């Protein structure tokens, strides 16, 4: 029986549109921690984009908008806090 290739399997499920990492773990049969490690490595390899989401503005630098929201991506959690949501997307702009 062929052993699954964890990184490729995770990448394939991300590409196939698995909505959460739990779902990726379920589909691949891999341990959830291993899936997280694989995703972190795919981000390092430039295969997957990762952006921390927040509806809050980290500071009041958003001139002109009434209720902050510095954009969906890139607004990091406050110092010392974990992110509350991370969006991952497979990069399709590779040559």
């Amino acid at each position: 029986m062929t052993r699954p290739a964890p990184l490729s399997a995770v990448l394939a499920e991300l590409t196939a549109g698995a909505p959460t990492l739990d779902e990726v773990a379920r589909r691949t049969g891999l341990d959830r921690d291993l899936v997280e490690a694989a995703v972190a490595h795919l981000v390092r390899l430039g295969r997957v984009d990762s952006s921390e989401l927040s509806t809050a503005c980290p500071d009041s630098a958003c001139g002109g908008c009434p209720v902050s929201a510095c954009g969906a991506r890139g607004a990091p959690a406050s110092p010392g806090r974990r992110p509350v949501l991370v969006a991952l997307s497979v990069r399709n702009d590779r040559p």
Partner: protein
Amino acid sequence: MRSRPPGAERAAEPAAEPAAEPVAERVARPAARGCHGDAAGDVPGDGRPVVALVGSPNVGKSSLFNAVTGARRTVGNWAGTSVEVGTGSWRTGDRELAVVDLPGAYSLDPLSPDERLTRDLLVRDTEAEASAGAGTGARTGTGAGHLDLVVVVVSAADLARTLYLAVQVLEHPLPVVLAVTMGDVATRRGIHLDAEALSEELGVPVVPVDPRRGRTGELASVVLQVLDAGQPPRPAPVPGPSPEAPCGDADLAAADRRFTRIAAAVGAATHRSGGSRTGWSDRVDQVATHPVAGPVVFLAVMWVVFQLTTRVAAPVQGFLDGLVSGPVSSGARWVFGALGLGGGAVEGLVVDGLVAGVGMVLTFVPLMTIMFSLLAVLEDSGYLARAAVVTDRLMRAVGLPGKAFLPLIVGFGCNVPAVSATRVLPDARQRLLTVLLVPFTSCSARLTVYVLVASTFFGRHAGDVVFGMYVLSIVMVILTGLLLRSTLLRRLGTEDLVLDLPRYQLPLPRLLVAVTWTRLSAFLRTAGGIIVASVVVIWALSTVQVGGDRSEPVRNSAYGTIAAAASPLFAPAGFGDWHATGALMVGFVAKEAVVASWAQTYATSEPADLRRPGGLGDSLRADFERSSGGHVVPAVLAFLVFLLGYTPCVATLAAQRREIGTRWTLVGIGLQFVLAWTLAVAVFQIGRLIT
């Protein structure tokens, strides 16, 4: 040469490689330079075996360094770099070892100068030696210019992630000992590590340590044993199925081989209490993100938010209303009277315009504070992320691009940055679709109008009505998306995203206060500017008389005449009144000014009513009663639906024009107006039949 994956920002190659020099001498360099160290000269330049500590960031590597060296650390920049490296002496029995605390690294594929240095020391030097004849095996410590042993520090609590570096190091001819930290954290998470099994899988000694408590276990004896006896050749890395790797990339294939090995090691060496990773956070998620229960929970949570917002804020809001319409307005009039300016145009502008308009919006401060606080609690606790999963699933179910939900979430705060946030979508048609959908997300500026109208007409059910408006907002986004997908934008690519849900956490009060204040002050700043400007414009238009009847000066002013001319358009929706139409015209510019414009025009046209608490509500009730022919409830609901659906503000239009051009912006304006008007008319006409 390794291929460089696009997007990976690897550390740039230096202009000139530093000449190879013995590691032991380079270890000594920081001390010799005397950089903010506290034990210069602790590490002699030769004669001692050199042990390097490596590991991912935050695995406890530096704690282990402190534990073995007695926290006698010398810190300095590594020769030719700006990377700080700690060095020290490890005395065990009658032996003394030189220890190097290399910068934290997730892997030997460097993305930073720190990682690059670690890679260079571990790989380049040993590869050079290997090519010169030094192989794996007995490498007794002579300090002759190489690392004699590497202690790779991994975390038992995060074994899969931290093992990657270890597996990479094991591919090189270096004697290796694995030190496993954070066993206590792993145990609390229900993870139990079998060090012996891990050792068998990887072919190197594995030693559990607890450096934070100063416990290094058998590490010293194992290190000395390996230094003295050498390390037998390790088995070659287990070949994985990389040739069939879907992307065929060399980096991915190599990484896949390592992850295959990691998966085998983790599987053999760890087991979980209860057999699964599930904790209370995951158990809550099983409900919060459930395909059926998830949306129900989300709706229930939002219902509670709006109930709390409207009910708790109502008494304070009433008190502030009384304050503004009573003592503040009276005081301002008294001042004008005392200055001999009473009854003039300036008094009208200041008292009926600025005081009434700005004062009315200030009464919403308690409400906004409560709502922003509750949303901050939901966000910081991690619940909003679960709500995002529910929403995302809904969008996918109807065929909308998953990534589109990112800007749409932002739209519930403000539409302007939401339009800019559509740039995350790589496909131009997806961007176009999402930009056209953003205006249907109910921004917080519309909330003030919802609350004023709902509390005026629906009393204790105001929270239900406001909640209903937010649900309708989501429905309108989905239905409009489907409409556009089946008409103007049939060819739409798909672009999925995955949401990673960190565990729930207790919100920090300090953070909640900061977030609430940031949002509230930003709202007041922007709303304040818009309101003052609109009040001045309305006042100016109200003073220009275009009709002969002086008994209704505002109705016959330029403002009233324009509003009255447009009002028949809304008669089928039950709110064909010039006050309501005028407010919607002002709302085209900015929704923040709707309430203020009502307060101003009623204060000028019906001053007696507005100079008592609740006077604005009474005036609104009378006008809706008149314009709807007695069907007040459907007319009010129709008004709210129209307010939700038509153009949010000119700032959003400007942002749309920048992103999708003038033509599509005009299409959007028309689409929003037609949908909003059609829905409003439908609500009123159907409501009229059943009430």
